[in-house]
């Protein structure tokens, strides 16, 4: 079976997700996660916004200190809003979620560090590559394909 692991020559991938993104996916997208990942937990050539370890460290500190004015929080709210806006949800659901994201408190962005088993994910589900050399997208990841390294 042609898998992502065979294609990339790596068995695992890593991703950092804010809790709110996971929660929204669970409630509105049937538990399917649109997930950008890297094949290393600390890919040196990726930007900090595409480095799972750097993101985790940053969000962990921000949420621990409840740093409400941190730019990363605003950036994440923007990212989540863009994701929801461009999804297939109805306008009513979209507006509800935009309001929820805008009002979300800092703890809603506490980070989860994921390890993905790429050996069982068909290559056809690798739908995009990113700006940086170690950045890939699967849009329909399910819980069974994820190990939560830091829940």
């Amino acid at each position, binding site marked *: 079976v042609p898998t992502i692991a065979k294609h990339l020559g790596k068995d695992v991938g890593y991703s950092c997700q804010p809790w709110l993104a996971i929660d929204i996916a669970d409630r509105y997208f049937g538990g399917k996660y649109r997930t950008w990942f890297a094949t290393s937990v600390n890919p040196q050539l990726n930007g900090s916004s595409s480095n799972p370890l750097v993101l985790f460290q940053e969000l962990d500190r921000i949420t621990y200190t409840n740093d409400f004015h941190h730019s990363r929080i605003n950036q994440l709210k923007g*990212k989540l809003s*863009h994701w*929801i*806006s*461009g*999804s297939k949800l109805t306008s009513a659901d979209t507006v509800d979620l935009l309001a929820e994201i805008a009002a979300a408190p800092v703890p809603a962005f506490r980070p989860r560090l994921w390890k993905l088993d790429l050996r069982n994910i068909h290559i056809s589900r690798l739908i*995009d590559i990113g700006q940086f050399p170690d950045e890939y997208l699967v849009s329909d990841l399910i819980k069974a394909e994820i190990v939560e390294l830091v829940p």
Partner: protein
Amino acid sequence: VNDEVIHAYALIGLRALAEYDFNEFKRSTDLTKGRLDDRINELLGQTHGQEREDLNRQLDQLESIRHESENQVAAAFLRVRSAWRARSVHRPLLSDTSVRLSWEFERAAAALPSMLLPFTIGHRLGTMNICVWV
């Protein structure tokens, strides 16, 4: 304001993102720019009166963003144009404007793909125009 109007504003914001940061746009959504345009127009068709005018005004601004960031060539010319405007405003303060502009032109030209050259620029500083918009 109904949900469709708010959704349309959000989509216009997403469309603007596609223009000024395409990588971030790709990270955010699986929609293509064309499909996104279709959805914006679809929602626009459901609005009326002042709301529609306001949305159209936002779209006009989007057109401006799109035009000004059309490609690398445009970006290079924008740098030239910015330099030119700055020179016009500060003209009395600059003693060596021709040197500065010359440097800006060289830098912009270096950023252009060679296959798109030559382009033509009016040389007279007082009436400078960019004649070729690739």
